[in-house]
């Protein structure tokens, strides 16, 4: 196992988890600001606890699955997940669909929660079911994605480096959340998703190949080749989408990447 491979695993897990943690933080911040911090934090904590129990329950079972089967299954899921991200990032970069805007999502979520409370002041003294459920759902869903990312990127016996990458991302986002008390809007999310889509797609192809026992030229170094290949393909796709959008509506094409 080369350092290039370990470094790529840490980077992929860090970047992919960063996006998920930012999305969870946006919702928890919206809930906390609108309806009070107690229920929002209890909901988020319950979500984190649920994920911990799930990981402890499922983690040991993963070790009993033969490595080639695990690599194949994880590779397929990773390809579906990564290419979905990459497709969306390409379409966003090409101006075909709108950018993901954490500030706008925060504002929308805050308005929806304020409407739900019927204009009354936020509940601070007792537990608020809406806050609990919203925070719990956000942390659980985004956290499930983080767990999947860690398992997927660390599928070749590199779970520890992948977990380190995710933990670093989580710590960074939590610190930013504590400091800012508002959404981390400055994260260039589409650029991150573009990079993560490339990394996850490359890992997906690599693990599927390993699972099917294809001998990769250069072994682990083939991963770097796949990353370069997907980057080139994705950049070509962005250029093609921009060109076609410019033909359709020359005035409205904006550069998003």
């Amino acid at each position, binding site marked *: 196992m080369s350092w290039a491979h370990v470094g790529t695993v840490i980077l992929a897990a860090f970047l992919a988890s960063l996006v998920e943690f930012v999305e969870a933080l946006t919702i928890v911040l919206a809930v906390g600001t609108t309806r009070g911090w107690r229920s929002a934090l209890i909901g988020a904590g319950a979500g984190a606890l649920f994920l911990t129990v799930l990981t402890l329950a499922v983690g040991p079972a993963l070790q009993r699955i033969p490595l080639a089967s695990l690599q194949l299954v994880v590779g397929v899921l990773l*390809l579906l997940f990564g*290419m979905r991200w990459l497709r969306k990032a390409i379409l966003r970069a090409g101006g075909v669909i709108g950018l993901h805007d954490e500030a706008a999502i925060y504002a929308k979520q805050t308005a929806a929660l304020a409407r739900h409370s019927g204009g009354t002041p936020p509940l601070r003294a007792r537990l608020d079911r809406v806050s609990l459920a919203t925070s719990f759902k956000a942390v659980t869903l985004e956290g499930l994605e983080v767990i999947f990312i860690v398992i997927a990127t660390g599928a070749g016996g590199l779970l520890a480096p992948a977990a380190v990458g995710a933990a670093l991302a989580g710590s960074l986002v939590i610190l930013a959340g504590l400091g800012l008390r508002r959404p981390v809007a400055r994260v260039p999310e589409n650029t991150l998703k573009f990079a993560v889509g490339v990394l996850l797609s490359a890992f997906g*192809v690599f693990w599927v190949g390993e699972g099917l026992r294809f*001998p990769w030229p250069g072994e682990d170094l083939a991963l770097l080749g796949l990353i370069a290949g997907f980057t080139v*393909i994705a950049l070509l796709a962005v250029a093609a989408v921009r060109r*076609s959008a410019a033909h359709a509506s020359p005035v409205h094409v904006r550069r998003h990447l």
Partner: protein
Amino acid sequence: MNAVATALRDLWGLFVEDASLTLGILVCLVIAAFAFPALGLRDAWRGPGLFVLLAVILLENVRRTSRRSG
């Protein structure tokens, strides 16, 4: 029950957004697993071959989506 259905829908959405892209990826994987060996493609070319198939699927999907929205 409603919460479970929502959770399952969200989980499904993690992997499937555009059905044609998902189907295309799965077809590529089936080709790589069964057609490559049957066609006698050399071992060392099977991984790169899979990458090329997936790249074509991605480019075609993005081109089609962009045309549809334009």
